[in-house]
């Protein structure tokens, strides 16, 4: 167990926030939509509010729980989009290596990579307006070439293996081989990359909400909590500290979990060598 320390610490951190998000669906300590000016800007531990309250008297802990839901939902769906489109594209490109389709898919990937993720997000939200859905689409589009490239590269090396030759001799089509033999061999890799993209997605969502391009009020999101706290940071630092810690701990947890999984799946990588 100790050998997979990263995996355990990461899983505990990530699960804690996942749990907070799920619990927030039916219970939060206080109502996040309720404005209570009499109790505004309470310091943490000053009162019944564990993490204090914001300038509207809303409970920070409750907002962080609901914010976890926003972040996790956006990042998770964005990774889903990336996998849903990226993996089949990568498999198709690898099955016809060097063909027109392969070339087309890889050139399109290069094209998407020419747009820094944030630029895609800015363009999409500029056109369709800021919302959580558009943040998902923006982050998702950026994830597609990431998964396509990874899948293609790994699939190409699996195609060289003897058991694939056997499957071809048995008369299986490229599509069947891709689905029945290639894909199962890529699952570990995809899960690890999925974890990494998930954590990047949480950071991206936070950044987009911070500049006002993500989830819109009244939906609490960590990025917007930070943006709102900025003018009050000198007299109410707790407003900036808690959402920030929430982001750091979630991302850290997912990254450790991803690293741990990679070590777990691939014993050849000695611990800490990479």
């Amino acid at each position: 167990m100790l050998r997979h320390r990263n995996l355990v610490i990461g899983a505990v951190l990530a699960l804690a926030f996942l749990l907070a998000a799920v619990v927030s669906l039916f219970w939060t300590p206080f109502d996040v939509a309720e404005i209570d000016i009499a109790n505004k800007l309470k310091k943490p531990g000053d009162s019944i509010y564990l993490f204090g309250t914001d300038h509207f008297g809303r409970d920070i802990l409750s907002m962080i729980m609901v914010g976890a839901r926003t972040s996790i939902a956006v990042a998770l769906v964005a990774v889903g989009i990336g996998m849903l489109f990226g993996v089949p594209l990568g498999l198709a490109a690898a099955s016809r290596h060097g063909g027109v389709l392969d070339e087309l898919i890889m050139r399109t990937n290069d094209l998407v990579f020419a747009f820094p993720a944030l630029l895609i997000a800015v363009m999409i939200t500029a056109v369709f307006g800021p919302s959580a859905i558009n943040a998902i689409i923006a982050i998702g589009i950026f994830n597609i070439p990431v998964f396509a490239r990874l899948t293609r590269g790994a699939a190409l090396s699996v195609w060289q293996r003897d058991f694939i030759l056997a499957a071809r001799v048995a008369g299986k089509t490229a599509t069947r081989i891709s689905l029945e033999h290639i894909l199962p061999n890529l699952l570990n890799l995809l899960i690890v990359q999925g974890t990494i993209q998930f954590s990047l997605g949480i950071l991206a969502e936070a950044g987009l909400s911070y500049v006002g391009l993500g989830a819109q009020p009244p939906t609490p999101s960590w990025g917007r909590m930070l943006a709102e706290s900025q003018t009050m940071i000198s007299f109410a630092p707790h407003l900036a500290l808690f959402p920030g810690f929430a982001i750091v701990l979630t991302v850290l947890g997912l990254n450790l979990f991803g690293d741990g999984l990679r070590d777990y799946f691939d014993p050849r990588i000695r611990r800490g060598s990479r």
Partner: protein
Amino acid sequence: MLRYILKRLVSLAMTLLVASIIVFLVIEVLPGDPASYMLGLNAQPETVMALREELGLNASKPVRYFTWISGLVTGDFGISYTYRTPVAEMIADRAVISLPLAVYALVLSTLIAFPAGIIAATRRGSAADVSIMGFSQLGVAIPNFWFAMILVTVFAINLRWFSAGGFPGWETGFFNGLKALTLPAIALALPQASILARVMRSSLLDTLGEDFVRSARAKGLSVRQTLWRHALRNALIPVLTIIGLQFSFLLAGAIIIENVFFLPGLGRLIFQGISQRDLIVVESVVMLLVFAVVVVTFLVDVAYAVADPRLRSR
């Protein structure tokens, strides 16, 4: 070699061409008519029509695309709808903040990451290695805009070493400008330095395990000589690729960081252009950033091929 460069140049041109069409089409579907936006709610329909004609908004889409793209190529970016000044001038005014900021951050990130990665790799498993890797794990998890807010609170509000935001202009002196960009550059550099230190460490560890390193040691070179003359040079190849890639992250990341520090750079210009329906400004800035990314990627590819001939055949 020449053939490789030519091939890459053709693909660079193709990427830029397709990217420009995408940018044009995406920005064209932006809701809201720039002409009516500029004239306000009470404008007469005839006035709006006249202004649309003047701005060239009535021409067909292909005509407008070719006018825009041929302007870009010749350095004429058009006239801003809102400010009635040449877009090229506006971009130039902003770029003197955004570009130095990205370069400053890149330099900082390299200066932090190289020694950190080298120390971690050469003293693998030591307390120094463990703490450098721990810090880098934390560095990639911290959102740079939050780190920026903490920097402002500590170094601008409490210690008063730096200003909390804004840019005094280069004309007030090089060091004043540099000082205003220091906190933003540190905030931008932190996650990049963490990634770079990890790449540096793993690349150097790989190289240190190679046969030629053992040969160098066997012929009597000291550990230090082997490291500097042989291992480091070879370990740098993947590191340089990452540095090239990071440039685009830094340019894009600047969009958010400029907001934290109220820096009037390209990122703020994009936001301003979007909210004022200043299509031509948004189009041109986005295209310029894409151009920068594609060109840097091209240069890295070429540098890579120069360093490693095996890659040219791909």
